[in-house]
């Protein structure tokens, strides 16, 4: 449809390789078989090349400089902007995580190109694409039409994409480009919240609790259930604020967005600030004493009952750990 190539921007980070592969997969689906070029920014060309050369891309440009770090937002953005300035391009896709979005914004400003964030669907229309995203806390969808022969940057919500790319038939042309002139980086200090690799966002099963679990003991039960199901523990803001569980478990507007196969919400009322972080889950089970709780509107299966009792009985049914 377009003469101009579509680009994907992949930032090297071992923790993000799967997300980058999901982004490639999303683009392959969305732009049905149009040639896709990707640009990787990395400290060194390995393992970037091995990670992506079999992903069915048309061309892979690897920009390398030793001091690359995603946290040096302005420096990374300047490197990408300079590269894209030299390449005719149509849509340019970025991931949707915090850091990548910040970088995408700076690139959009430097190139004077539009940026449409949080895209979760793309379909072809005359001379262009229709992009879709969630707005108003997930209560409406917004559709934007962009021309294929003009430049637009997109950040893509890959949380819902979990089929990684199959090894591509396409031959990837790899171009290694050492970046010699790197922009200066601002002086910032990074304060990690937790060093543990965070599993929650990628979990297949999330067992989440709220005020209805009534205390840390309730969350121990939920943790046991999560363990039995090889899942991760999540929580509402009320439970986090009460100190029953750690901050990193918070799901929702201020917390994480999860898209598991099964989401089990126990003692959570279903405030929109919470549901915006879980309403794309594939199957939702809600347990709540209040038959009118809003969470049931987001559920596929609901049990009106006491969270602790139901979870205890379920645990006794699941006596032996399940095989993974």
């Amino acid at each position, binding site marked *: 449809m377009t003469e101009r190539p579509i680009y994907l921007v992949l930032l090297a980070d071992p923790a993000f390789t799967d997300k980058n592969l999901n982004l490639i997969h999303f683009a392959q689906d969305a732009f049905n078989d149009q040639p896709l070029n990707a640009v990787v920014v990395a400290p060194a060309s390995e393992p970037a090349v091995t990670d992506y050369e079999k992903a069915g891309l048309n061309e892979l440009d690897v920009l390398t400089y030793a001091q690359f770090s995603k946290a040096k937002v302005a420096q990374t953005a300047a490197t990408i902007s300079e590269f894209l300035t030299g390449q005719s391009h149509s849509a340019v896709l970025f991931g949707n995580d*915090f850091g990548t979005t910040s970088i995408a914004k700076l690139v959009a400003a430097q190139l004077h190109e539009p940026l449409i964030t949080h895209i979760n669907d793309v379909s072809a229309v005359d001379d262009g694409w229709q992009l879709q995203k969630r*707005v108003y806390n997930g209560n*409406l969808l917004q559709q934007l*039409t962009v021309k294929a022969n003009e430049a637009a940057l997109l950040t893509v919500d890959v949380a819902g994409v979990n089929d990684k790319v199959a090894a591509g038939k396409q031959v990837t042309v790899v171009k290694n480009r050492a970046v010699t002139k790197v922009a200066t980086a601002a002086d910032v200090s990074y*304060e990690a919240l937790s060093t543990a690799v965070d599993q929650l966002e990628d979990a297949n099963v999330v067992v989440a609790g709220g005020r209805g679990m009534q205390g840390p003991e309730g969350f121990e039960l939920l943790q046991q259930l999560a363990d039995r*199901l090889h899942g991760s523990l999540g929580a509402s803001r009320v439970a986090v604020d009460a100190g029953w569980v750690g901050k990193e478990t918070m799901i929702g507007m201020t917390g994480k967005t999860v898209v598991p196969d099964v989401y089990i919400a126990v003692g959570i009322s279903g405030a929109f600030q919470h549901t915006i972080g879980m309403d794309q889950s594939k199957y939702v089970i809600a347990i709540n004493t209040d038959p009118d709780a809003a969470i*049931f509107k987001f559920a596929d299966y609901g049990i009106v*009952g006491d969270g602790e009792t139901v979870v205890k009985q379920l645990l006794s049914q699941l006596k032996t750990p399940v095989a993974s």
Partner: protein
Amino acid sequence: MKSLVFIKSVRKLNADPQLDAQGQVNADADVGINYLDKLAIEAGLQLAGTDGSVTVASYGDPKATESTLRDGLAMGATKAVAITSDLLTDQSNQVGLGVILAEAAAQLGDYDVILTGDQAKDDAQGCVGLRLANALKLPYFDRVNDLTAADGQLNYQLLWEHGKLNGSTATPAVISVTDTINKPRLPSFKTKMTAKRAKIESLAVDQLTLMDDATWQHLNAAVVAQRFVPKPERPAAKIVNYDDDGDAAIKDMMAVLQQQSII
């Protein structure tokens, strides 16, 4: 410190959002300040100290803009400016809005910091702040959840993957605030009354001085249309009462977990 805070009027959705034939949110809907923009005003008020000031400015439908600006004044802003412009010809393409606001900022002058919300609820773009900063050639920080002034510098903390980034910047700078930065104050009876009577200034942006025409065209070329559609309906849940038949409920749950290949 003197802050210039850009605030947006957003339409409030009722339980069953009404969309018109063009796929736009019903123009009669109530409007209010975009929630994060209230936090931006609060941040400005906290930075103001005794000799500072907070100006609120907004672009949009005249009636909505006036009510939003009065809400901003009621929170304690000292001056309000309604921005108009003929340059945004297509209301469904707001890509260039940040540049228009930057022109307004350049005309207004007299600020140490420009504050915006991280993103507006109705388009979740989060692009206005960075365009402002880029057009005005100022440093930009988004997702800021702590902001203090010291010796003419701004110290900020922003949310970052699995952590936070701390740093400081010279002024002026553009800052977009996130929802954990503060709790916005409620207007008092007195400030509400003052806000009702206050004068709202108007400012027209009728030419571009910060960006040449070709660049402006490039910026506005790609996006051609925008509409809203209702979210897809979720089929009603199967709901059972545990006290009626607990064993059946647990059996159902086990079946679901098996169906979803979890166990």
